[in-house]
């Protein structure tokens, strides 16, 4: 069986051993055979048909999902790759119940890893993979409430497991769910003495995330594409290690601030070298506006007051306009005046 699709186009697909009952040949799908379609549930094969799709004549295997009667069509050539498998046998179901009754391991706490692994188990893990997802998320829910996405995943896995167990044991799904929960959440005082559970489902090995070397990281940070934006910033000081965040670094940053304001003429760290950083020109206009000489402020006051009535009117109009607009746009009231 082919493993799940690779996360990166350059990454080769990993070959995993097929699950028990895996259907690798379309000729095995005779009408009436019951198979499990990953993430869809138990289906009954109805036969083969030919369809003209996009100018191509395709041989399709027609299956009907037992749960709701939905039709699933799979090209014959793709049968080995979609992960079809036969309905679990009695031994497999026994193994599932032994697994569910066994002591549970600590759940994976990294949600990303957990979610990905569970998705892989649902697709290629067989009936034991479904049980692993249900048990793993169930034991996690004992520690903390499941997030919505995982709650849905749990519900899907449970749905698929319940239906497969029901089909395998020949009981209604309601009874199959009671069997599963009787083992998963045993009543007070009930303990199961079961043989060791089957080996867990093999998952594709995930390559570790490539962590760049410090030198590489620096060069990455330096290449932020700022030159494309017409900005010529020196980031040497900014990318200092956390432990190296000293006063000198701050001073250097202040110096760069000055440099930017002065049009890039001054050298980086100039202010730091001078000892006293010069006043920040960027804050200057605001400060100037606040701290103007009294005389000047007095002289400018009448000049500012004169046009002040016009902005007031404009502001009043602006306040009223949205209200009028809203009134104009508001839908007519129900039972309003009839024309």
């Amino acid at each position, binding site marked *: 069986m082919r493993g799940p699709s690779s996360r990166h186009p350059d990454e080769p697909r990993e070959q995993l051993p097929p699950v028990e009952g895996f259907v690798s040949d379309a000729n095995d799908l005779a009408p009436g055979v019951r198979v499990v379609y990953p993430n869809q549930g138990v289906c009954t094969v109805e036969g083969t048909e030919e369809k003209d799709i996009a100018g191509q004549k395709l041989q399709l295997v027609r299956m009907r999902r037992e*749960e709701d009667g939905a039709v699933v069509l799979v090209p014959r050539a793709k049968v080995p790759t979609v992960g079809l498998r036969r309905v679990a046998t009695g031994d497999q*179901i*026994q193994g599932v*119940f032994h697994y569910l*009754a066994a002591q549970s391991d600590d759940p994976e706490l990294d949600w990303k890893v957990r979610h990905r692994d569970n998705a892989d188990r649902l697709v290629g893990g067989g009936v034991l993979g479904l049980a692993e997802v249900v048990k793993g*998320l*169930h034991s996690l*829910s004992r520690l903390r*409430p*499941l997030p*919505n996405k995982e*709650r849905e995943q*749990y*519900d899907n896995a*449970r*749905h698929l497991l*319940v239906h497969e167990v029901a089909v395998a*044991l020949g*009981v*209604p*799904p*309601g*009874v199959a*769910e*009671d*069997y599963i*929960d*009787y*083992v998963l*959440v045993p*009543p*007070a005082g*009930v303990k*199961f003495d*079961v043989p060791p559970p089957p080996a867990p489902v093999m998952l594709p090995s995930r390559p570790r995330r490539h962590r760049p070397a410090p030198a590489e990281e620096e060069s990455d940070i330096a290449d932020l594409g700022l030159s494309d934006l017409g900005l010529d910033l020196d980031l040497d000081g900014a990318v200092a290690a956390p432990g190296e965040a000293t006063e000198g670094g701050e001073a250097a940053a202040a110096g760069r601030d000055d440099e930017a304001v002065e049009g890039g003429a001054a050298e980086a760290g100039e202010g730091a070298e001078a000892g006293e950083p010069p006043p920040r020109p960027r804050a200057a206009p605001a400060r100037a506006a606040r701290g103007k000489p009294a005389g000047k402020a007095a002289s400018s006051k009448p000049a500012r007051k004169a046009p002040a009535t016009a902005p007031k009117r404009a502001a009043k109009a602006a306040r009223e306009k949205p209200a009028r607009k809203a009134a104009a746009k508001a839908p007519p009231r129900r039972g309003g005046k009839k024309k």
Partner: protein
Amino acid sequence: MIRIALLEELDPADLTFLTRSLYRAFGLGTEVAGHRPQPAHAERKDGRLDALALLRAAAPVRAFADDKVLYVTTAPLSLPPGPLGEPPCWGFAEYGKDRALVSTARLPARGLSEASVEAHRRRLAREAIHAIGHLWDLHHCVDARCPMHPSWSPHLPASPEMDLCAFCREKSERKIRLAKT
């Protein structure tokens, strides 16, 4: 619409509480559809009734599409034994279909005090919501406060709630909205 059919006598006040609780939980009209005879051949050697056989043989109730029928009995029920034993049976529902069964045999004794009567009613309502929830495609829930949590769970609170958890409520509402009628 949820229709309640009684296979044995039930206190009218309990029945009123049950209909109100079901209406609150699912937002569907609930009414009592009267009495039906208890099928005799569902009884097993140990005196309990086979839940599957009982539901199959119960007299039908006139219902429209998407109506759910809940049979209430006082007899103890049993399920066929599973791979690791027989789970305790509080009721049974045909998953995603239209008939469910609930028994009062395992509920706390009704007693005479107000508190015991209240506890009995609340538990009956919880089990009924659980059974009807299965008819709306709800599975067992991980939240111990939700009525869809397994009935035998040791994590069940002493006074069980009758409101579905957010996930189960949303799922049931979605199913009810998608129903034909």
